[in-house]
């Protein structure tokens, strides 16, 4: 299209940011890299948030598409070639200038570059490679770069790009290959999983090489992926099982879940009158944490018979209530992994408990200072053999009390008025009981 030629940088930035915003990943985490005294930039492993947009999400990277032109027509995507939207493309130089000037003003932590597919996957991947090459070698940018690999692109291009990026991702898009076939006919499990495996192997080979000699680093912050939730009928159990498989078999650093927004008003896709399924997305993230930091397995949290998360209780509380035989846990004795399973004890406070009790017996007030959320933990723990209050180790009793704790449903969702409740509330306690 010709219009792109005369379009101002501002207009392009507007269009290509708008088109990139549904991608949820925006973290700059996973790599520590000190400055080198010459180039601009360094990286901190925990990542840094630079601002929060009106939807409350962290903005860390300049998240843009190279182009929103696309030869394909995935039905959930705004850039589908069947859509009548304004199209634009950056040049590599424009992206470099924006990144450098934003970075030195401390607006951003780096670049997150993704793209629609212009001409062919190889053609697009090459443009992305060119951009990263200029940024690293002409502008000497040493900050964070997250790049999306284009499904179907030449493995050689993917590999070369991996030496310039900190993190790479290929979106799984949908949890099952069936759904993928229906909604994204040009993508397949194969074109997605093949490069994912390639990058995984590349990272491993690079690690081995780095042990014996100095070498350029390949995707040092690891890979991530994203799944759209709520566009297709998969259960939480299916979604989490896929995530678990990706962590275990593909060594992924993160799996992101994106509550579906029906941007195309496509009649093949659910309309979700309550808006995007935010509470469901939230529960999936909580469960994801349990997999990554708390040594839980999906089979402990969900099953064929209980395929979806409880919307009133977070997955950990829900698990604990169904496993009262494991409680109460004695704070001054239980090992780290057992502490991790107690509702109200996060992995940081579990670590602090293990440290602090070496130097003296802990009491409930110590726990509070350490950061334990006592109003949640108190049903499940003893300190020196005593419970905090006389409570019953009884499923209904604890459940009722925990639900009285309004913080169990995240504030942002509580305050959006439980619009999405109707989607799940079958077989649940009546919402009034909790809202009052």
């Amino acid at each position, binding site marked *: 299209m010709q219009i792109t030629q005369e379009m101002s940088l501002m207009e392009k930035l*507007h269009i290509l940011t708008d088109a990139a*915003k549904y991608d949820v990943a925006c973290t700059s985490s996973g790599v520590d890299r000190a400055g080198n005294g010459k180039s601009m930039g360094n990286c901190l492993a*925990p990542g840094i948030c630079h601002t929060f947009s009106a*939807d409350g*999400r962290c903005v860390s990277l300049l998240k843009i598409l190279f182009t929103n032109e696309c030869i394909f027509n995935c039905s959930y995507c705004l850039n589908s070639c069947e859509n009548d939207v304004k199209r634009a493309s950056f040049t590599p130089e424009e992206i470099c200038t924006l990144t450098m000037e934003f970075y030195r003003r401390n*607006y951003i932590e780096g670049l997150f570059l993704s793209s629609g597919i212009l001409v062919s996957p190889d053609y697009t991947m090459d443009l992305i490679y060119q951009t990263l090459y200029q940024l690293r070698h002409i502008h000497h940018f040493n900050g964070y770069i997250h790049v999306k690999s284009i499904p179907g692109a030449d493995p050689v291009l993917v590999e070369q790009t991996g030496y310039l990026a900190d993190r790479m991702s290929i979106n799984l898009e949908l949890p099952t290959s069936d759904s993928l076939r229906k909604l994204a006919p040009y993508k397949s499990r194969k074109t997605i999983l093949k490069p994912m495996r390639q990058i995984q192997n590349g990272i491993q080979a690079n690690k081995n090489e780095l042990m014996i000699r100095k070498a350029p680093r390949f995707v040092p912050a690891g890979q991530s992926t994203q799944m759209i939730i709520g566009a297709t009928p998969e259960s939480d159990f299916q979604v989490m099982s896929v995530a678990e498989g990706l962590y275990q078999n593909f060594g992924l650093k993160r799996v992101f879940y994106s509550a579906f927004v029906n941007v195309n008003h496509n009649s093949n896709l659910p309309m979700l009158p309550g808006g995007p399924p935010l509470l469901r997305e939230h529960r999936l993230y909580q469960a994801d944490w349990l997999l990554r930091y708390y040594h839980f397995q999906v089979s402990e949290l969900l099953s064929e018979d209980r395929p979806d998360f409880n919307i009133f209780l977070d997955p950990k509380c829900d698990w604990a209530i169904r496993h009262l035989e494991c409680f109460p846990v004695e704070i001054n004795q239980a090992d780290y992994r057992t502490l991790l399973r107690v509702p109200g004890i996060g992995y940081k406070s579990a670590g602090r408990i293990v440290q*602090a009790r070496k130097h003296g017996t802990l009491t409930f007030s110590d726990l509070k200072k350490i950061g334990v959320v006592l109003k949640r933990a108190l049903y499940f723990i003893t300190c020196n053999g005593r419970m905090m209050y006389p409570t019953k180790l009884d499923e209904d009793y604890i459940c009722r009390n925990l639900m009285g704790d309004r913080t169990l449903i995240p504030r*942002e969702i509580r305050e959006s008025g439980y619009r999405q409740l109707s989607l799940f509330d079958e077989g649940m306690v009546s919402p009034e009981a909790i809202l009052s």
Partner: protein
Amino acid sequence: MHILICENSIDGIFSGIYHAYEKRYGHKNTQLSTIEGVDTYQLFCEYEDITTDAAISQKVANTLISRLGTEVYSELCQAISAYESPNERKKHINKAEAVYKTVVLGLSIPNGSHILEYLGNPYVNRVFQLSLSTFNEAHHMLGFLRFSELENGILFSRIHPKNYILPLLADHFTDRLPQENFIIYDEPRKIAAVHKSGSRYMLAEVPQADENFINQFSDKEQEYRTLWLTFFHSIAIEARKNPKLQSQNLPKRFWQDTIELSGNS
């Protein structure tokens, strides 16, 4: 009880600790307090003012580093850099006292580098809380701080943090932007970190900032600000709009130091 009153700074509190040992009243009979921490004088207490002395403070620092390790040392400094509101001062152990008694405990146990694990101890716990508060704000500010390019190419940033985090920020940006000339100005404390391309940064007291100088932006400055605003507004998803979550994640007191939320760009 002997109460030693010291200045609210690293040198001040370290000088206080030195004298608390030197005077030999016994640690049980000695308390340290910052000047701000003394609002009513108590009966049967003897108050002494301690003069801040950089050389003495350096001696204390050396002892702490060699006996407790650099990690504990920097946590202590971080705790001292924390701001205590009048309300907090009423409810909690005074900062100087918490640091002092933590040091006493740390030097009395065989493995002093583990002192900060004694979270059951109220003094250590207070040090931990204070240090965490400084660390958290510094980490936030690493992201929320903004530079503006002045006419002469210098990057200038004005900040209003609660805690004294300027050195932590200056360290970070010296590493990140080694070839830039930049200034970070802590406006409430009237202290600036000044970094010249290719060198270390320096701290300078700036009682009166030259408003003309710091408001002379380069030609390109407005253009990039506008581009940033365009990006900032385009990245939000309308269907998920949530101002409460936004201000929960980015507390309003930081807004004035950003470009996109300060309301004056």
